[in-house]
């Protein structure tokens, strides 16, 4: 206990929390919850645990002071938003909601002793752990594509410096060049994200470098919102975009960064002026290294969870949410992560209060822009069953392909895409 108190006081000093909050936090907590990861899932969980019950002590473990959102990062790549427009920070979480933000990385989780070891050597004890580590890249899965290669051929699938790099490369490339994208098979973060990116790069090239081409090399034969995207491409970008599916040798198995070349499964070599390589992914390192991910099978590298609670099926009192979790049919999106986080916060708060937790419902609402004033969406209401998470029949789905006034409909959905971002930012980081 003495050890815990020392650790606690030390962390408060380190986090420089406002005195009023520190005084309140010194009252004995009803429960200690540690949240790992300050993205859409983790930040939502930390905030909503405190909204559910201010008597729960919540510690967010996130080394960064600022977070660049992947949602809207394609707007930066398309040139109509700046990187500064997609930055969120944790000041409201600490200052307004009394979450302790520890700016270190989690290096190991021990579910047996219910502790998390931090990069600085300190250990945090928890009653419940919420793990939202996002994804890491499977370096080397595509031969020649490692972290060093991403400095030449950015993935830009973690937003921030990689986003800025891809944007700079597009600005620097000559008119008439080829922008190549390598897109992985499922599952990966944000299923429609690569196709929004293709669209918004095309939007930029059409205005600034109209003789250029986009070559999208895909590791699958079908993709999210496909008909809606392809309708938009035909309408707005004509033959600027060439999409090559798996069945037409779209899968990239090797890259040669020094020669700006991508090599397909059957040996076709594609030379590009700009190469955006989105590699296969898996649950963030901390999850896999702590034994919380499947080690084999179809979902190797992803974290199995109880569909009713998002509690890990491999460790008690550990809840895995967001992209790292295998949520079945729930897409790996920021909205899904936030919805899962709210359900987990409610579940934990109910257990702490001695209530029977209620049956959760999960939602996804995801907008993609085909152009800055042309939006499309997918939405679903998900329910847990003993056989996994299912979409509620008869509900949800895609924007209509042929609405009565299509131009107005797409325009409205673009406005709502920006509105989505404004609301989500406040709901999570505000």
């Amino acid at each position, binding site marked *: 206990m003495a050890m815990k108190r020392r650790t606690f006081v030390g962390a408060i000093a380190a986090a420089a929390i406002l005195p009023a909050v520190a005084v309140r936090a010194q009252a004995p907590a009803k429960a200690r919850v540690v949240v790992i990861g300050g993205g859409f899932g983790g930040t939502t969980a930390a905030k*909503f645990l405190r909204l559910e019950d201010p008597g729960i002590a919540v510690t967010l473990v996130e080394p960064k002071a600022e977070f660049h959102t992947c949602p809207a990062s394609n707007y930066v790549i398309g040139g109509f938003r700046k990187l500064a427009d997609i930055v969120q920070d944790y000041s409201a979480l600490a200052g307004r909601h009394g979450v302790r933000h520890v700016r270190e990385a989690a290096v190991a989780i021990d579910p047996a002793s219910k502790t998390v070891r931090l990069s600085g050597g300190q250990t945090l004890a928890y009653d419940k752990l919420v793990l939202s580590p996002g994804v890491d890249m499977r370096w080397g899965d595509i031969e020649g594509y490692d972290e060093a290669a991403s400095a030449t051929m950015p993935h830009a699938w973690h937003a921030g410096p990689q986003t800025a790099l891809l944007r700079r490369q597009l600005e620097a490339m000559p008119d008439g060049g080829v922008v190549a994208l390598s897109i992985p098979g499922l599952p990966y973060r944000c299923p429609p994200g690569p196709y929004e990116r293709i669209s918004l790069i095309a939007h930029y090239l059409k205005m600034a470098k109209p003789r250029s081409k986009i070559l999208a090399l895909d590791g699958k034969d079908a993709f999210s919102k496909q008909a809606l995207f392809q309708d938009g491409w035909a309408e707005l970008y004509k033959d600027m975009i060439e999409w090559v599916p798996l069945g037409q040798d779209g899968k990239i198995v090797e890259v040669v960064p020094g020669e700006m070349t991508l090599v397909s499964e059957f040996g076709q070599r594609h030379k590009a002026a700009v190469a955006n390589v989105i590699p296969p992914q898996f649950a963030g390192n901390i999850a896999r290294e702590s034994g919380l991910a499947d080690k084999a099978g179809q979902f190797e590298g992803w974290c199995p969870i*109880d*569909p*009713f*609670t998002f*509690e*890990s*099926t*491999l*460790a*008690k009192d550990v809840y895995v949410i967001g992209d790292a979790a295998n949520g079945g049919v729930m897409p790996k999106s920021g*909205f899904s992560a*936030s*919805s899962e986080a*709210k*359900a987990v916060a*409610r579940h934990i708060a109910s257990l702490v209060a001695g*209530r*029977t*937790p*209620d*049956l*959760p*419902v*999960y*939602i996804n*609402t995801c907008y993609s822009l085909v152009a800055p004033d042309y939006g499309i*969406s997918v*939405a*679903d*209401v998900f329910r*847990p*069953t*003993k056989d996994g998470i299912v979409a*509620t029949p*008869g*509900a*949800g*789905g895609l*924007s209509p392909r042929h609405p009565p006034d299509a131009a107005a*409909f797409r325009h*409205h*959905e673009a*406005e*709502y895409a*920006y*509105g*989505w*971002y*404004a*609301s*989500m930012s*406040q*709901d999570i980081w*505000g």
Partner: protein
Amino acid sequence: MNALACIAACLTVLLAVAGPAAAQSLAPTTGHTLAATCTSCHGPGGRSPGAMPSINGRSEAEIAKTMHEFKDDSRPATVMNRHAKGFSDGEIAAIAKEVASWR
């Protein structure tokens, strides 16, 4: 299945902490839970900072009526018709009560 694989499979079952929480071990879904995700698009407390309509300050009856109109497609919508169809009439009533309670 050979003996070794069987032992491995049995161990895996033993090591797993529990099967899925049974639906019947959980309480019925509350309005609080159903409405929790509304704020993702409509803003904290239903006060939207952007293009999404604010839903704060509307009466329970108005919210329920609007949701039913989305559900039966009698009210024009982009995405809310797709959402509303995912909820039972009882759930819509619970959502309306919860959202109307936001201050």
